[in-house]
């Protein structure tokens, strides 16, 4: 079964600083990969998804970007963080089980922009 590695677990960054969050997946090949963000007490917002190397789709306009340099690596970046970028960031991998897909999530990164 697939395993999703996401780091760091927590991060405190000043406004205007760059960001790089990395997610790697084991146990599957050519997965669909996703970045979600969750504000405190809220549901998950889909930020980016990728169906393959170099293929990125953005769901909402924002200060963030994503890249997929390798099949099982998904990176979330920002050149200059804003206060509003604070939140809980989750990487997810879609796995096909039977005829349906399931999402498997990493452990998340709690980002605080101060």
């Amino acid at each position: 079964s697939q395993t999703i590695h996401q780091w760091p677990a927590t991060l405190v960054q000043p406004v205007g600083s760059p960001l790089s969050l990395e997610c790697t997946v084991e146990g599957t090949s050519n997965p669909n990969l996703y970045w979600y963000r969750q504000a405190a007490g809220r549901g998950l917002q889909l930020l980016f998804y990728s169906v393959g190397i170099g293929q990125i789709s953005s769901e909402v306009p924002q200060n963030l970007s994503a890249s997929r340099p390798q099949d099982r690596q998904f990176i979330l970046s920002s050149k200059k963080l804003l206060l509003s970028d604070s939140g809980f960031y989750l990487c997810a991998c879609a796995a096909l089980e039977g005829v349906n897909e399931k999402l498997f999530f990493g452990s998340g990164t709690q980002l605080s922009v101060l």
Partner: protein
Amino acid sequence: LAKTTQPISMDSYEGQEVNITCSHNNIATNDYITWYQQFPSQGPRFIIQGYKTKVTNEVASLFIPADRKSSTLSLPRVSLSDTAVYYCLVVGQSGGFKTIFGAGTRLFVKA
């Protein structure tokens, strides 16, 4: 993708059965229904998935009526550790979870 509506919060006591209902009036023919559980500071975890009628696994049961416009997640004999947020998702069978999770249902299990 179909929009879902579920209660914001529910309270229960240990040992009780909990039923959380989700409305999805615009569900398409090829869509299926998935429920996730999320604990604080963790990613959501898959609970159960179904297309129609009843699905049961070691954790929960999922009841889907014939018109599929709603579904009910049933948690038998809840414990304190079942306190979490439960999300209902309707996803297309073609794949791709290109949807925004709703706020979910916050279940509080009391002793």
